[in-house]
């Protein structure tokens, strides 16, 4: 019997987050972060946004994107901290902080997404 470690699960979340963010993020960020503010393209109206976000499918996809990306961030950030800065002795603290933020962030995301009428 294989002992259950958390590592495979964290890695799965990390990878899934990596793939999903790679697929969806660049375009979203290009539109909302760069193109609209620069005025290259007119930003969608509030009504349009509500229509798009009102679709349950959009919300599910966004929720998955937010949650997995947060875990992606948490996992990578944790590793970078102790490989880059060599602060391995703080292993546990870092893990609690990073994954903690991801869990809380996921809750907040769920709350915000389901607020939309």
């Amino acid at each position, binding site marked *: 019997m294989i002992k259950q470690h958390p590592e495979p699960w964290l890695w799965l979340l990390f990878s899934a987050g990596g793939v999903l*963010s790679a697929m969806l993020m*660049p*375009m979203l*960020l290009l539109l909302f972060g760069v193109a609209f*503010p620069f005025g290259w393209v007119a*930003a969608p109206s509030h009504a349009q*946004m509500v229509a798009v976000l009102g679709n349950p499918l959009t919300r599910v996809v966004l929720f998955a994107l937010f949650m997995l990306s947060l875990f992606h961030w948490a996992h990578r*950030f944790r590793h970078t901290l102790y490989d880059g800065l060599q602060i391995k002795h703080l292993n546990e603290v870092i893990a609690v902080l990073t994954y903690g933020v991801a869990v809380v962030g996921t809750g907040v995301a769920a709350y*915000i997404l389901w607020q939309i009428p």
Partner: protein
Amino acid sequence: MSDSHVYTPYHPRWLRRRVSTYWWLQKWSYFRFILREGSCLFVGWFVLYMLLLVNAVGKGPDSYARILEWSAEPWVLGLNVVSFLFVAFHAVTFFEAVPQALVVHIGRTRVPGRLVMAAHYMAWALASVLIAWLIVGA
């Protein structure tokens, strides 16, 4: 394996070198690795930014307008341009690694890694077009 640190004629003192804290500055490829890992910060920022946006949409047209205005502030705009570059870099590094991490079989033959990678790039392009169409086109 002898771990002795004291030199005697029969117990040579082995030299144990420490990895420098700035190891990632020693080689371009290490630095690129750190940049790749660093991209996660921008992934995190993106989630935060989008949540603020969605939250604003939920709060009504006024807050939505306010957030659009805020997003045009130079520092936000600057941050987002950098974030976009990092996120795109993240995407490229992720797809680059696909052939190494994923072996796909169709029946008993192995699909060449390049093909698997190409499929990912195609999916990326498709997803991006779909998003653009949903938000701008519709």
